[in-house]
């Protein structure tokens, strides 16, 4: 799910191949060295004479490494060039903003098509996705190993990463640059959907939240709207994640725990215990009834 050796995209696949080749080569070199040292210590006079010669030293210590490394370097440069090639014209553009300790995700370039979500990216299978990666506060790093290598999110810089999934699936990613506090709990999911399913999801995300069937008053009376947005309501806060379709996401708290009514309640009541130091306070003072109603409302935001 979050493994370099289980690639689901072309970049990750190329690196996995490279990795296996280097591992095999490295293992061979290790074996050769073990044999060499053994011969040097316990071998016959003939082999020891060869090993002790300056000629052998220069061949094995200089020429052979130079050749091997030159070949390896070329392979690496070709792969590097592929990654930093300019974006393809039909690519899907997504902006990801790293914040302590979650991921703000923005889709769409034209006003009507824009929407914001958090901690989860959904992408179409078989199409290039160009991510624009920035940071609001400290340095973070966006890494979803099954698809591609990582790119840092550095305040003041705009970095780019191309993702491309070759099959549908759920891929887990994690922040890979220490950002203080609960850095260990800053993860996300990339969900690759078949093209039709993706279009449907995109359309659903663009719509504002449906009129709630349940009581949303606790959301407002507690002040949640100060930090969170639910499109289609008066909640327009931007400090925290957009909650318009939060219940449709796989997880809460940047992949800290799965969504669901019970977990919504837990998160509201004791998120400081689940993810210490995160920027949302715990609302432990709410009554059980209030938390229930809030959780039910949130769970309806699909």
């Amino acid at each position: 799910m979050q493994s370099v050796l289980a690639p689901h995209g072309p970049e990750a696949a190329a690196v996995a191949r490279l990795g296996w080749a280097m591992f095999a080569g490295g293992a061979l070199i290790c074996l050769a060295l073990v044999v060499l040292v053994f011969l040097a210590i316990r071998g016959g006079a003939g082999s020891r004479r060869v090993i002790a010669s300056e000629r052998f030293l220069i061949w094995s210590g200089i020429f052979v490494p130079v050749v091997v490394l030159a070949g390896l370097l070329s392979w690496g440069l070709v792969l590097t060039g592929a990654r930093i090639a300019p974006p393809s014209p039909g690519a899907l553009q997504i902006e990801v903003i790293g914040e302590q300790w979650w991921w703000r995700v923005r889709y769409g370039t034209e006003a009507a098509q824009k929407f914001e979500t958090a901690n989860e990216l959904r992408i179409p299978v078989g199409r290039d996705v160009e991510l624009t990666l920035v940071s609001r506060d400290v340095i973070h790093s966006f890494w979803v190993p099954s698809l591609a290598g990582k790119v840092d999110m550095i305040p003041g810089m705009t970095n780019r990463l191309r993702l491309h999934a070759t099959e549908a699936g759920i891929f887990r990613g994690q922040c890979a640059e220490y950002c203080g506090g609960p850095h260990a709990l800053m993860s996300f999911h990339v969900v690759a959907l078949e093209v039709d399913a993706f279009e449907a999801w995109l359309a659903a995300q663009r719509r504002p939240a449906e009129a709630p069937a349940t009581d949303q008053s606790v959301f407002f009376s507690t002040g949640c709207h100060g930090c969170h947005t639910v499109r289609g309501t008066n909640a327009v806060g931007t400090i925290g994640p957009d909650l318009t379709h939060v219940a449709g996401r796989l997880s809460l708290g940047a992949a800290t725990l799965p969504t669901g009514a019970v977990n919504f309640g837990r998160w509201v009541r004791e998120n400081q215990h689940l993810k210490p130091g995160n920027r949302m306070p715990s609302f432990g003072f709410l009554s059980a009834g209030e938390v229930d109603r809030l959780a039910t409302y949130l769970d309806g935001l699909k």
Partner: protein
Amino acid sequence: MTEKRSPLPNRLPRPKGELALLEKAWKVPEGWRLLTAVNNTYIGVFYIGAALLFFILAGVLALVMRLQLAVPGNEIVGQGTYNQLFTMHGTVMMFLFAVPVVEAIGVMLLPQMLGARDLPFPRLSAFAFWAYLVGGLFFFSSLFMGLAPDGGWFMYPPLTSSRYSPGDNSDFWLLGIGFIEISAIAGAIEIIVGIMRTRAPGMTLDKMPIFAWAMLVFAGMIVFAFPAVILATMLLELERSFQWPFFIADKGGDPLLWQHLFWFFGHPEVYIIFLPAAGMVSMIVPTMTGVPLVGYRLIVVALVATGFFSFGLWVHHMFTTGIPGLSLAFFSAASMVVTIPSAMQVFSWIATMASGRLRLTVPSLFVLGFLAVFVIGGLTGVMVAMVPFDWQVHDTYFIVAHLHYVLYGGMVFPLFAALYYWAPAFSKRRLSETLGRWSFALQFIGVNLAYFPMHFAGLAGMPRRVYTYPAGLGWDLPNLLSTVGAFIIALGVLLCLVDLARNFRFSASDAVGDVWKAGTLEWLPNGIYGPRSIPIVEDREPLWYRPTLADEVEEGRYFLPGTKTGGRETLVTTPFDAAPDYVLLVPGPSWRSFWAAIFMAAFFLLLTVKLVVPAMACGVLSLGFVVAWLWQTDPGPGPKLAIGAGIRLPSYRTGSSSHSWWAMIVLVLVAASLFVALAFSYFYIWSVSPQVWPQAASDRLPDLSWAATTAVILVAGSIALLFADWALKRGGTGAGRWALRATLLLAVAALGTACFLEFCAQWQVGLRPADSSYAALVYTFTVVQGQLVAAFILMGLYTIARSMTGKLNAARRVTFDNTKCLGHYAVAQGLVGLFIVHVSPRLAL
């Protein structure tokens, strides 16, 4: 053999009482006065002991971390504590253990290995040691006060800027690193001057033991690499304390500036740690095989090449930051090139083993373990030098595996080999072969069990610096195995500690001696005074080449078999041919360097907790003790001393032959490296944030007349120094002496005024350092210049005081020469600084 050779320098029998006088001169104080000891063997053993203490302390932190990570979702330590633990583990290991321990081994071994009696500046080593011990212990104790830094050992801003790390924790890191910066530079000075100027006669550079070559490269690397991190820490502290925005993007700063400065130091740092260890291996393998090192010249080339190339790799720590393709390609290639010299060394060692018969002693076992583990680390290093692979494994446990394989394998194993190998030279009892073998076996198994699974954890997606992880991602088993391995390592280390406790009985004069039949000079039967007489060296392995050498040295047949002045003496020789040049009067035990260190440590500590007035008081006290210490230097010329073979040498040298001048040159190189790092920072930030640079000549740029005036005053300072030099040479009467003092005072005034004028120039045009990164950098030029000028002012006034107390004249002028060296450099730095700050922005308009 001896009939063809010229007779030995000194005849037998030696005069009665000569040996007793020698012993008296070198005697180490007892009881609590041991704190004043400065002999390199004593400082060396204190230093190694302190470094090992930090190794254990940082290792315990690692054990706690491993306990926390043994199972997913563990709750042994919380997030805040864990973040402090990994920061401290890395910082203490790298700064308080790794560099100090190899430096300490150099302090302990080098003089006797080179045939000298001590290092050229013993009180400087003592000063560096005590500052390091006190500072390091206080730094470590910050953990118990919840004040330990928690930004990672590399402390990246903006996380470590005051906004995101508001507490004093990060300031403690800046403190902790300050001590190692000072000890490292002091050590570098000692080692360069010691290796280049105090080798035994006849020990030309190509007869010098490989360990000395390794330490020479080590010291050179420190001179050029440490200033980058010194500047970086200075900038971060200015940003945290006064909001000078070097790394804050909103104000034109760039977080990557820190990364460039830090890694420009950080990459050479790991070779600073590795090369001395390689040097130790190059000493141990020949002894254990009974044959000289194969490929000595190639190894020297490899050491120098590694040192040189290691400065061209630093960006491989930044492959994921979004730098352009050309950079990626260059640094990837360079990172691979650097493996070639290391490969050369590995094959040289194997060739040496093949040339002789390797005895499988404890040192040999640790060397074999080193080869296995270091090579694996080197191979994974090649893997991560490949950019696309690094893009996946950077900042994951794969890197943790790599770095521990190269550091534990590449330095700690040689360290244990060195402990077991050289202990008999400094201990009344040798260490135990049995305990040593068990310690090795446990450490070897433990290292592989702890770190090999980390490769898989990293490839399975586990990032670094995480206090916990979820179950079910495939990380559970590798972590559990690593935890078990870590405790096995601990057991192995513990066994060695038990061995040391039971068997290591430090003695500089009564040690077991050469149990290995080694060939190099540190194995002579030394006393507290080092060798009884300073030998003539004719070969790389003098003890093998001339089996009678040890006896002849001990009988006092070679140079300086006693003490001519009643004090401590060693020989200074010429840098390349090692011909006797003069006799160095070596300082003895001193309270002054001890208290200077204690008060300096107190100064930094009190500043960190923001107790400014007490800090200043301690700073003044420290300075006072430094002056008192310096006052005892520069004794002036005395009668020539007979060292043997009819040679009479002076005991005092002035000019570019003086060991003191050499030390000043090294210091100037350090200052110049710092300045170059600052110049880099200026031009780098300009390229990143041109919008905060002056957009027009009238835009916050002082009129050029300010710079011109300042430049003229600076040059006047140099001219004043030239006049002072001339006045001193002419010497003689009262008028001449007053001319000297007046011109010195003028030089002091000129440099001080120039610095102040530059500050005024920027201030009067409305520029304030917190405005933007441009402003901050401009004022930093003044800060860096100001530090140098402050040092020069102190040295200038001190020199005037020496003159007024009759301790400075045409023949006794080393103090003046050192002052003038710093003065001219300060003028040059000031002029270049003026050009950068005033002229270069105008060139772009």
